């Protein structure tokens, strides 16, 4: 029922009232808010602490400084920003200077005098809160990372926003400029907001502007879902470090990724917008309540906590579509043995192997010691290794059948004996029908017993037993 859903979900979504009273007022110090509100101060603080920021070319503090400004002082590409504006107001991108004209973010041409007028408007406080006199800053234009080429509209640079609370990344999105947003990553103007899976850095759902859900980039029809944001772990690390430096309990950190030098922080916000919830299709308040009060030791702990609590959304989506569980290359596996014995260990997921193999010692711990001794005595008695060496494959299979019949007669307790041909050497191996469990999925598997004492993992899970899973080689 719609109304019931709204009633239940109302405490999950963060609104402006709660943002101010429950989070900004409680967790953000006035000093931290002041730092976040001053782009030059932010830049100095971050630079001093080794966090990369765009290079400041010039700051113009008053009319006198503006009068002194020469055309030659401005590089062919740069960004003009008011020091105290928020929500991206007053920010202008200029690039490709030709014949005394720069191209503006919206595609129009502007000359030096027009740029001076824009600077004058900033100085007069046009974009600052309460129209107080402001400072104009000119900083380097970040050339967008080549991976973003397919996503962004010409001239625009996508930015990444990560929201941090209590040193834990809570939610993140990639803002992609469009034609409507005039090359700016401003969702209010029509830019795309695509949520990023905190665990993998891959894009999930997206909205254009502050509403309409979309699946493809409008101007070239490129699919948004699954796109991987470069430097993802580095971005998370920097974002949490910023929180530690500014002492802002709740903030968002905006990044650009330079083609050559990687991530750079362009802005931090102590009063971050709420549209990210529409992009992520989830509520911020619920997430913040979940991490409130957790003792976070350091940045690494914060990132792991965020990824474990709120990551894995890409996998969820894939799992919903395929009906299969996404697993990594190394997974924890629980094996159920005889008489209720169970063992949990790390297993290698090996699609190169046909079937699952378990170390002899592990089988002993699972209650198969007696069976293995009986099997070894039986094989020593029955197996003629010299004879096998001279046999063809067909003859070996016939011999395998004979061995199995004999083993059944003697009631060895082994489910099957198979002649395994592998790169490391061919031999007869005992097989046991065991129940395995990976990520809560239980399945029956015929597992061969082998000496794996000199190998890193005591279990490998082969492709015959991986029908219920999809393997992500990047998953940890």
């Amino acid at each position: 029922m719609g109304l019931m859903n709204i009633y239940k979900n109302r405490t999950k979504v963060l609104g402006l009232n709660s943002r101010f009273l429950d989070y900004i007022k409680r967790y953000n110090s006035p000093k931290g808010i002041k730092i976040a509100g001053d782009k030059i101060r932010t830049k100095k603080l971050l630079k001093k602490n080794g966090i990369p920021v765009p290079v400041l070319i010039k700051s113009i503090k008053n009319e006198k400084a503006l009068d002194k400004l020469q055309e030659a002082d401005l590089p062919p590409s740069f960004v003009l920003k008011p020091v105290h504006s928020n929500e991206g107001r007053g920010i202008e991108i200029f690039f490709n200077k030709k014949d005394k004209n720069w191209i503006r973010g919206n595609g129009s041409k502007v000359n030096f005098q027009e740029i001076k007028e824009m600077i004058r408007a900033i100085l007069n406080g046009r974009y600052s809160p309460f129209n107080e006199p402001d400072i104009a800053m000119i900083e380097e234009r970040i050339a967008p990372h080549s991976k973003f080429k397919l996503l962004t509209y010409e001239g625009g640079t996508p930015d990444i926003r990560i929201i941090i609370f209590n040193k834990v990344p809570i939610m993140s999105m990639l803002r992609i400029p469009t034609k409507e947003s005039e090359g700016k990553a401003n969702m209010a103007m029509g830019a795309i907001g695509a949520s990023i899976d905190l665990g993998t850095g891959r894009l999930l759902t997206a909205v254009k502007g502050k509403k309409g859900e979309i699946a493809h980039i409008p101007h070239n029809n490129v699919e948004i879902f699954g796109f991987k944001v470069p430097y993802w772990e580095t971005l998370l690390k920097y974002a949490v470090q910023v929180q530690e430096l500014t002492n802002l309990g709740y903030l968002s950190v905006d990044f650009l990724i330079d083609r050559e030098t990687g991530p750079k922080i362009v802005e931090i916000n102590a009063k971050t917008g709420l549209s990210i919830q529409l992009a992520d299709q989830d509520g911020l308040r619920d997430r913040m309540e979940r991490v409130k009060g957790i003792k976070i030791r350091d940045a690494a702990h914060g990132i792991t906590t965020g990824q474990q609590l709120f990551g894995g959304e890409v996998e969820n989506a894939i799992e919903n579509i395929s009906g299969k569980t996404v697993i990594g290359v190394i997974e924890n596996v629980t094996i159920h043995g005889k008489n209720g014995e169970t063992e949990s260990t790390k297993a290698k997921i090996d699609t190169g192997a046909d079937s699952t193999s378990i170390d002899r010692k592990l089988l002993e711990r699972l209650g198969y010691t007696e069976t293995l001794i009986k099997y070894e005595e039986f094989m020593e008695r029955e197996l003629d290794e010299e004879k096998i060496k001279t046999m063809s494959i067909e003859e070996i299979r016939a011999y395998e059948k004979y061995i199995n019949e004999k083993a059944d007669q003697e009631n060895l307790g082994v489910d099957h004996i198979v002649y395994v041909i592998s790169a490391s050497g061919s031999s007869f191996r005992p097989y046991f029908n065991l129940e395995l469990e990976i990520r809560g999925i239980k399945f029956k598997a015929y597992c061969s017993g082998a000496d794996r004492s000199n190998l890193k993992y005591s279990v490998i899970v082969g492709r015959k037993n991986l029908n219920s899973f999809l393997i992500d080689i990047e998953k940890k």
Partner: protein
Amino acid sequence: MLQEFLIPALLFLPFIQLMVSIARYIIGLNFSSQNIIIFLSYIFIFSSYQGGEQNFIKGIVFVALPVTVMMLGYVLLYKMISKLYMHYFAKQTIIVSIALAAVMLSINLVEINIENWVFQVIAFVLTAIVSLEVMSLYVRIGKKKIKLNILNSFIIAFVSYCLFSTVPFRTLLVENQYLVLLPAVVSIFIGRYTGLRISEYIRFFPILNKDPEKK
């Protein structure tokens, strides 16, 4: 009669502010300046006083014509002279002069009676001030945002005016002047409200309408 109008008008300020709080924190109407709403409300109130009593329609006519004309005049004039190489306050003075001349013209057109000249003068001064505020807001937030912003301010001011125009309310306020503390009491609750605003229920409807059990 004058007392029955003036005392409620004086005590009405906290009620306007209460309306502003409800509009912002409960309904979620977007506006940038509380002053514009307060001035507009008082323009409604003062311009409605005629011949010893309140005339509801007169207030609406005044706001609909002189106020709107002056606001639009300011913004239009600003657009015309914004590119002139001049200081900001000098530009404002030019605009105020021309806009007031336009207002005088509109007054003559609607033949507003100036018999209650004190209130009319107050209404005019407030109109001039509110128009300046609107112009500086236009400069600050741009033409896209200002339309909705001003419309919302008009709505809140009009609702406040409707409340003021209710005779029982005014009588109650005259007879129980400490009723002026009522907005303070209500504000204690509004001031601590951390739930979603009505507008946010609409904005976040796609998230709110999701099945909470479904991941």
